[in-house]
């Protein structure tokens, strides 16, 4: 159900764009209004969500320690996986965000039973990490070279990225690897979700939908560039007009496929702040990763710490005083001794209740 629905949703979205543009001629709606609305939704939604997260307190210092603590001077601490300093946290976050370090640790359960005896091993499993990291970086590269549609003159750096991306110098227009990898990796992640029974079991519509959506974006993009050869000059005219906030629909006709492409992109932007895609800002704010592990050395303050009802020592002694005295345990108040002291002039009052040995500091 989740899969079919997600796939259908993306197909319907494409159909809507086609119908809207090719059928009803609503180029301004799909070329200007919806993209603007989507971008505004994206930024507003993202900012509001992050602010909401920020308003939620961090009452306790709860990093997951993944390496040796800093304790005795002759034991080497792991300052990245158990960071006691801000620098360490930055290094940990750097590796987490840019190399997906935690995911790189992934293992695969190998569970067998041999002669009635279970044999459990944790095998190596790097595919998820590989798919994920290629997916994200190719997405980034695609985003970066798309800047050429929104800038004039095109910055040097964008040209460089494009040149690197077209490293294979294959085809005309030159094949940009990033787009192909992006679609392939989205496919690989989808394939994994469908074929691994447990991963399929946990998957929701909201897991398939973004994958289909991104694949749709990638495929429409690739088709435009390599097969249909859409009018790139007209497209740039439109995108530049969007960038400078003076939107115009160009005179020259643009293939509806382009409108389908930017409609899907718009949907992705608008969907982002309300979906699991918020893992992008979220990874920076995860308290198990972004806190220093020095809570024994430096006190972490809880903004809503409130007093609680405890059972005090006095209450405890009240409950057990007789038993304690009988067992020879020192007490704060010994009624018998106090009574004797009151009678006999108070010589016992000063003595500490039987300390076995007094040691000097």
């Amino acid at each position, binding site marked *: 159900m989740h899969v079919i629905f997600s796939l259908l949703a993306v197909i319907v979205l494409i159909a809507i764009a086609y119908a809207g543009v090719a059928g009803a001629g609503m180029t301004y709606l799909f070329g200007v209004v919806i993209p603007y609305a989507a971008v505004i939704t994206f930024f507003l939604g993202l900012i509001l969500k992050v602010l909401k997260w920020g308003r939620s307190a961090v009452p306790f210092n709860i990093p997951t320690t993944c390496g040796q*603590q800093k304790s005795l001077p002759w*034991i080497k601490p792991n300052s990245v996986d158990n960071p006691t300093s801000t620098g360490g946290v930055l290094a940990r976050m750097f590796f987490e965000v840019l190399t997906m370090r935690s995911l790189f640790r992934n293992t695969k359960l190998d569970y067998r039973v041999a002669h009635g005896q279970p044999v459990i091993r944790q095998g190596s499993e790097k595919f998820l990490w590989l798919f994920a990291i290629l997916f994200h970086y190719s997405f980034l590269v695609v985003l970066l070279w798309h800047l050429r549609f929104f800038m004039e003159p095109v910055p040097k750096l964008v040209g460089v990225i494009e040149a690197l991306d077209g490293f294979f110098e294959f085809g005309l227009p030159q094949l940009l690897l990033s787009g192909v990898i992006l679609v392939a990796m989205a496919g690989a992640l989808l394939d994994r979700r469908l074929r691994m029974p447990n991963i399929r*079991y946990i998957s929701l519509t909201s897991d398939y939908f973004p994958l289909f959506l991104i694949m749709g974006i990638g495929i429409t993009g690739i088709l435009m560039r390599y097969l249909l050869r859409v009018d790139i000059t007209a497209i740039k005219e439109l995108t530049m007009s969007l960038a400078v906030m003076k939107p115009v629909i160009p005179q020259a006709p643009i293939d509806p496929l382009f409108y389908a492409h930017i409609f899907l992109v718009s949907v992705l932007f608008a969907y982002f702040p309300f979906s699991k895609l918020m893992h992008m800002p979220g990874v920076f704010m995860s308290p198990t990763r972004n806190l220093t592990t020095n809570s024994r050395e430096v006190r972490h303050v809880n903004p809503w710490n409130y007093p609680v009802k405890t059972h005090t020592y006095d209450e405890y002694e009240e409950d057990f005083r007789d038993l304690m005295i009988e067992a020879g345990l020192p007490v704060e108040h010994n009624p018998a001794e106090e009574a004797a002291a009151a009678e006999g002039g108070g010589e016992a009052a000063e003595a500490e209740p039987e300390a*076995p040995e007094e040691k000097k500091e």
Partner: protein
Amino acid sequence: MANPTPKPEQIAAVDHKPPAADWMDTKPEFKPGMFLYAVRKESLEGVGQPNPRDWNPTDADWKLPADWKGIVREGIKERLQRFRSFQIFMDICVRCGACADKCHFFIGSGDPKNMPVLRAELLRSIYRGEFKVAGKILGKLAGGRKLTEEVIKEWFYYYFQCTECRRCSVYCPYGIDTAEITIMAREILNLLGCQIDWVGTPVNNCFHTGNHLGLKPHTYKENVEYLLDDIEEYSGVRINPSFNRKGAELLFITPSGDVFADPGIFTFMGYLMLFDHIGLDYTWSTYASEGGNFGFFTSHEMMKRLNAKMYAEAKRLGVKWILGGECGHMWRVITQYMDTMNGPADFLEVPVSPITGTRFQNSASTKMVHISEFTADLIHNNKLKLDPSRNDHLRVTFHDSCNPARGMGMLEEPRYILNNVCNNFFEMPPQTIRENTFCCGGGAGLNAGENMEMRFRGGLPRMNAVQYVKDRHGVNMLACVCAVDRAVFPAHLEYWVPGVKNCGVTELVANALVMDGEIPRQYNLRGEEVNDLREEVDLPPIQWPEEEEGGEPSEEGGE
């Protein structure tokens, strides 16, 4: 009541394939051995917790409070604001499944709802269904579902089948920590009075008597005295520790389980001998006689209420700082919560070892040092007279307890100690130790007696790694620094890896300690004859000196 626990080969036949039915359409089966008993009424009343009543998880009617839905919704809402961890972990999971096969309960049971991601979804689906527009309107299509009594039962079953070990959080690309989610879920369940007895009753005991077992002050002292008699019998040394003594330099706090049950008592004897050996000026407290904190397994508030005793007692007794014994979750509480909740402990001093002069800068604010840190420092400074060959009959491996590993990072200290007090030390496979360590299967209040099948299943991955080193290196002793481990492992080892025993690190230290005025150590702290143990592993017997009498007070110390 009595349900025969399945045989190991029956339990081992785990199928990790999910069922055909969608997880939102399946319900847990409350099968004996696989769930925990409901908390007794008096225990909730004793600490003023909501909805005390007589009930049973197998009942159809759980006697929830009239407005239970409102309580749950309000409980979730409040916690989303109070805990960023909770808010973010509800929002950002991508269900990549990296955590799925990391949970010991999933590995040992194959129950898909034991995959950390699904355990979290049990709560996340309600968060979406009750708080998110899309979830409210689209329901299942947006991953949301409605709050029903069945959901509460499911929560009770699965959030009391999580040991808050945090192994999944090591592998999660966003650090999503199921322990955090379980903690929140248990807090919310607690608002409805849906608590397990093995958490609720120790909490009530601890609150009133100072320890989970409910040992009253004189009993606590008596128990220690029995152990002192044993020490004298096996080592010839009579130790006279103090209790509740004002003016001692240090207060020592350890889990109460170790004063009571085998094999924890041997670790306890180890503390007594170690402190005597170095002439430490310290005292025990009968009031703060619990290092563990089962309050942590029900709510942050209850954790704070129980933990408050430590600083309060240190202040009353006027000690300089606190030394803490071997315990897992106790050290998570001390490391990540105590100072924040009940500090600042400005009436204490930055811990300095009175024996070596080492300043424990890493605990400059909590003012509490772990016994393994303390002991490692002693050994490093040659302050202990050790004869590691006394442990030669042991082939030792070390279990990193979840909390010291993933909530603290104390990985090398116990290993350093073990390598100095015994000659045969072997590591389990790297994917099962240090930050990757597998839980004992009984943490977070799950070490009860009625859920043995659940425990055996959860303990299987750890036990299987022990089996691995037993097969390869003849390992016969599993050392650890956790009292819950010591309560849990003996049964698990007997069930999964017969022939391997369990001990605390300090027990091995004490066995190797050359005490002043000791008699020939023909017996270990367990009262087992060392030569019998040596024979079991084909070591030649030790020739003990003939004279039984003269061995006693040879000379005072020698120096």
